[in-house]
């Protein structure tokens, strides 16, 4: 082969190898580090895996926030108005965390069905609703409507 072509081929092969190795590694790392979102209904139905990092979210149930009197431990329930899940967290909650507000928590579901959060996110704008939460609420709303419809039609 012509030496210039040989060199060019060498460079191109090197680039292809580096890029495909990089993309392979990227995709592998992505597989390891994604956090799936589950709604309270999905968690109560048993669709969510235990002891794996996931996200859960919904509206904080009024009157459910309980703080420990000595430490920063806190528990509260989140709901999609179908089912609710208890979230346990130790630390400082964000400024916009309050009852009736949509939140997303990141953490693991333990064997008792309590969500052990290591991070709680509330958004920085009170008008803003996390899209996952609003969709979970919409889905729950749909099933309620369907139930009402079927109940009405059976009556």
């Amino acid at each position, binding site marked *: 082969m012509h030496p*210039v072509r040989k*060199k060019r081929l*060498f*460079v191109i092969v090197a*680039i292809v190898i*580096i*890029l495909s190795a*990089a*993309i392979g*590694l*990227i*995709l592998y*790392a*992505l597989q*390891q*580090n*994604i*956090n*799936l*979102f589950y709604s309270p209904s999905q968690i109560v139905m048993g669709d969510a895996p235990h002891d794996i*990092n996931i*996200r859960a979210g919904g509206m904080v149930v009024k009157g459910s926030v309980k*703080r420990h*009197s*000595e*430490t*920063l431990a806190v528990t509260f329930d989140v709901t999609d108005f179908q089912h609710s899940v208890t979230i346990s967290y130790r*630390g*400082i*909650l964000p*400024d*916009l965390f309050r009852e009736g507000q949509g939140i*997303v928590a*990141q953490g693991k579901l333990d064997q008792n069905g309590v969500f052990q959060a290591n991070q709680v996110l509330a*958004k*920085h*704008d*009170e*008008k*803003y609703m*996390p*899209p*996952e939460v609003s*969709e979970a609420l919409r889905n729950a709303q749909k099933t309620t409507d369907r139930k009402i419809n079927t109940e009405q039609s059976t009556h």
Partner: protein
Amino acid sequence: MLPEIGQFSLILSLFFALSLALVPLIGYWARNRLLLEMAQPLTLIMSTLVLVSFVILSVAFITDDFSVLYVSQNSNSQLPIWYKFSAVWGGHEGSLLLWVFILSGWCSAVALKVRTLPENVGPVVLAVLGIVSTGFLSFLIFTSSPFVRLLPDIPMDGGDLNPLLQDFGLIVHPPVLYMGYVGFSVAFAFAVTALITGNLNASWARWARPWTACSWAFLTLGITLGSWWAYYELGWGGWWFWDPVENASFMPWLAGTALLHSLAVTEKRGVFKSWTVLLAIFTFSLSLLGAFLVRSGVLTSVHSFAADPTRGIFILVLLIVLVGGSLLLYAIRAAQVKSSVSFGLTGREAWLLLNNILLTVLTLTVLLGTLYPLIFDALDLGKISVGAPYFNSVFTPVALLLIVFMGIGPLSKWHNTPLSVIVGPCLLSMVLSGLLATVLVLWCGFGLLAWVSFTVVFWVVCLSFFDWFSKVSAGSKGIIPRARQLPRNYYGMLLAHLGIVVTLVGIVLVSINSHEAMLRLSPGDSASIAGYEFHFDRLEQIKGPNYVADRAQFTVFKAGDPDPVAVLRPEKRMFTTRQQVMTEAALDAGFTRDLYLSLGEKLDGAAWGVRIYVKSFVRWIWLGGIMMMLGGLLAALDKRYQRRAEE
């Protein structure tokens, strides 16, 4: 009346932008000199009209004209005056106007320099900028006009600016960031012009270089300011969150860095021509993608503006038209480009090629991580988020590798590097940096990761010094006259490279040597963290211009020292108009450490949740950013560009 003039002026500027997009191009194909010469006045008129709109919106804010919907949503009569001005870009519509205003600023800068370009190149560049301006002006006018009125029911007072944005950081961060984002449209315009005129020789790279370096410098400063703002304002003490919107600004920066380097090769050696054009298009596309991600609300992020699907679709169409159009042009033209020059595998070309490959990989890493939730959702696989562990584990090794090569690259020579030039300094630096890092790590008791990082840091510092020294000691003149003769371009590079290293030191130390605690404290309590004693003195209520606050006072002592190190007064503010609670962290900044304290929630009794951090070398992260920015500006101001321009 004024807001109507503002709106009218915007519409008129769209008309001029459209003419700017068409007239010079017609002139180019019809070989009509008169039409080509129209480009400069058209640009200046368009920019002046945008300036008028911008001033009118600012006046509406400062005079509390709540009959304007956008003002009533984002301002309040109680707001301090400087925040009234910065509230102009506190929401979607106004920040888009700021974007267009800065774009028109860059257009006029090019228009004023147009005589330094060949007579059929400058006008085409302006025409391409006209196309971009037309896109953004119509986006502004048709989907997000900031001049919509609330008549006849004028509200008594406004809804106030989001408290998070009532801060010095927000006055400066968006304009500087946009200067960078939008500045890349100039590099894009030069690249597209090269494709249109078919003049894909080295000259376009020479013209585009100072513009690219300048916008890169602004983008660097903008990202640095954003990181600093997030650090002290969000109250979590983090300086980077891999948030989609941060990534949106980081991707053009990575691509822009690659572009800076490949422009150098294209200019000096005439190779990588088509790759450089492609990179200019990609950098600009990533800026547009960033705008799309932030403004469409498709991704969950702390920065999201309230979502509006029509805006998302408009900007997506804009993205497809501009990027698709330029890529089509590229596909037609690039086949004609042939690099006649070859280069050796040890030449500087090869090192810069490596730089480009690694930067492309880094950009891809961030791009995939940012878009993965969208892809996942589109395929109906569920809602996911990609966390910081992904970015940290993939980005860090590649970035470290890049920094290792960053040390060697500057030593290399064009075409082929004699091994003797590289091997000696590299061996010496390797031994020296390994030794220094070992001593440091053993002395401070750090781990393996710190050893690797510090070896890389010392490696770059040593090699940069060797390179500089070999350049100034060559020849018979003294060191100082030689040092003065070296071009600004070279010192710019040196400064930017050292900036990277300074940032790296900051990142490494802040992540391995920081201490944090979340505690439950009442007035009178103390806590001891990392050799500092934090004493909670008292809590008081204070009143600000548009908020009431609980303010705590902490006195900090160093263990064994009776004199206090600092008095920290963190606040919990309640903004009265929006009824929104905000944490105001208190900081004692230092060259080697920051003391950082923020209030959590009020618990039962007199107790408060309190966050305390001792952050090691965190300032270095931003110091490095400032060094990079200065390096970029120094490179942009190289005498060479001015001289060539005059010729």
